[in-house]
């Protein structure tokens, strides 16, 4: 019996380990080995998602509990400057049928000096303020981050890359300090990633043209390269933080020896600002993604999208935060409302949301939120093959444990 042929066994093992850790004081899991230090941490989240008008990320109009994440990580400082670490992640989302365990990140880090360090392995990609913590629910202000920039259908695609990065912190005298990252490598796409599953339309067209019966299982989606940079500015004004991130990548999809899709993201730029004052905080981000897509040698998309949001939060007590979100996305910045084909009549998304986050204690977090949406961008045709509604809503509840 091979381990890989029974993925449910690995899921059970990860679940049991996490559950076991929940039963014991977390301080037990910081293990000292002589002068070296090893730490084991993890998390478990369970959510509920229900939508009206359209399905969102899967079959959600009748409600679903398929909103589970389990993570377990281990870190070891082998010397003062050298660290090894990795995190295994099980993610079960409404449209993600297989729910496999994967390496979320796997890092060898050498910290030469404070302004210069190197990381190699599978590394989280910086994009805007929140991309690097998308797999850890208790680190995000919302269950579903503003979709205009943190599109959930690309969460597994643009989460991390295999390659390297240099990083460091630079002091700017009285202005504050800057954390920087420069990275490059390749993304490894899983067979059950949403963007791969949603390619059924391309496969169907290819089958029709060639009298074949191929499925998305025959599709090979590859990333040729990804590179980018990120600057996080921590100003000397208490509570004020800014960020500027950039990335570029190229993807290809193949059906055996035939290239059926090419996506080149020339640039994805996100400018971010976050300000906290007493019990209030405001986050705002603006992004444009300039890309060109060809499917079966026909250009299907060419030009920049546009995205921005405002998130206002109020914390009457430290453990409790109410947030209001307004979020806007246009598939094409210069052609905002023209239908993008018969399955994408409303290629925009305007989201008004209210949310609550309650940190019950250091380890447990509860969240609730409601979204009211105009538009049906981001693969909504795939989730709603019978047709999409322009106006729709969804709500979610989630409980997280971390140690």
């Amino acid at each position, binding site marked *: 019996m091979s381990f890989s042929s029974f993925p449910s066994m690995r899921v059970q093992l990860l679940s049991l380990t996490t559950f076991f850790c929940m039963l014991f004081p977390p301080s037990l899991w910081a293990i000292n080995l002589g002068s070296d230090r090893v730490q084991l941490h993890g998390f478990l989240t369970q959510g509920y998602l229900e939508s009206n008008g359209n399905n969102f990320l899967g079959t959600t109009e009748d409600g679903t509990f398929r909103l589970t994440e389990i993570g377990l990580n281990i870190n070891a*400082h082998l010397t003062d400057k050298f660290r090894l670490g990795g995190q295994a992640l099980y993610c079960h989302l409404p449209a993600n049928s297989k729910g496999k365990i994967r390496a979320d990140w*796997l890092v060898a880090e050498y910290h030469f000096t404070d302004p210069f360090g190197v990381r190699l392995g599978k590394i989280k990609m910086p994009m805007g303020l929140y991309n690097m913590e998308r797999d850890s629910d*208790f680190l995000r202000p919302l269950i579903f981050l503003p979709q205009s920039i943190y599109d959930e259908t690309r969460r597994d695609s643009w989460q991390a890359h295999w390659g390297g990065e240099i990083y460091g912190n630079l002091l700017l005298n009285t202005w504050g300090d800057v954390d920087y990252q420069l990275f490059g490598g390749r993304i490894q796409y899983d067979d059950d990633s949403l963007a791969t599953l949603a390619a059924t339309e391309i496969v169907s067209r290819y089958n029709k043209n060639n009298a074949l019966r191929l499925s998305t299982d025959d599709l090979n989606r590859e990333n040729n390269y990804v590179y980018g940079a990120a600057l996080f500015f921590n100003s000397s004004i208490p509570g004020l933080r800014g960020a500027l991130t950039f990335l570029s990548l190229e993807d290809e999809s193949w059906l055996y020896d035939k290239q059926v899709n090419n996506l080149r993201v020339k640039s994805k730029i996100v400018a971010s600002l976050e300000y906290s004052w007493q019990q209030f905080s405001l986050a705002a981000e603006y992004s444009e993604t300039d890309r060109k897509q060809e499917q079966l040698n026909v250009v299907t998309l060419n030009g920049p999208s546009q995205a921005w949001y405002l998130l206002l939060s109020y914390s*009457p*007590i430290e453990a*409790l935060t109410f947030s209001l979100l307004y979020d806007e996305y246009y598939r094409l910045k210069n052609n905002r409302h023209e239908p993008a084909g018969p399955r994408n009549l409303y290629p925009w998304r305007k989201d008004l949301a209210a949310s609550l986050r309650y940190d019950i204690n250091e380890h447990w977090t509860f969240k609730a939120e409601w979204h009211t949406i105009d538009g049906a961008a981001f693969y909504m045709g795939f989730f709603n093959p019978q047709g999409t509604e322009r106006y729709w809503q969804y*709500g979610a509840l989630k409980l997280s444990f971390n140690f």
Partner: protein
Amino acid sequence: MNLKRRTGGFLLAIWLFTAGAVGAEPQENFMMVINVHNDITSISRKDAELIFLNKKRSWPDGQNISVLINEAPITYDSFSHTVLRRSPHQFLIFRKKMLFRGQGMPPPTVKTDKAVIAFVSGNVGAISYVSSDAVTPAVKVIAVTQ
């Protein structure tokens, strides 16, 4: 009752329950301490912030810095607001982000001044903080300058 009404009702109930609650400004009630064999006599607030955020990892002489977080409530609150300019809760979230993003290991924590004194006196590169009345000759107090 549908999910929208249930969620809305819950949000409203929590809002009403907590309306008017206001956090008090903390008083400065901590002393920054290092090992007695360390030559440093003072540290800027910015350098201390970078050290506790894991962005500055060595002393000027090249010695590795060993950070210890003291979670004794009043001291922790005072240190966090004064030096880090963030609440203990925000500092906790910062450390969790560093850990779960794969960017580093958070420093160890203790809950008593006594444990801090024992750690700092036994580690040449150590830095931490204790309440003003807990200082002993086993550790060296340094000034935090603006």
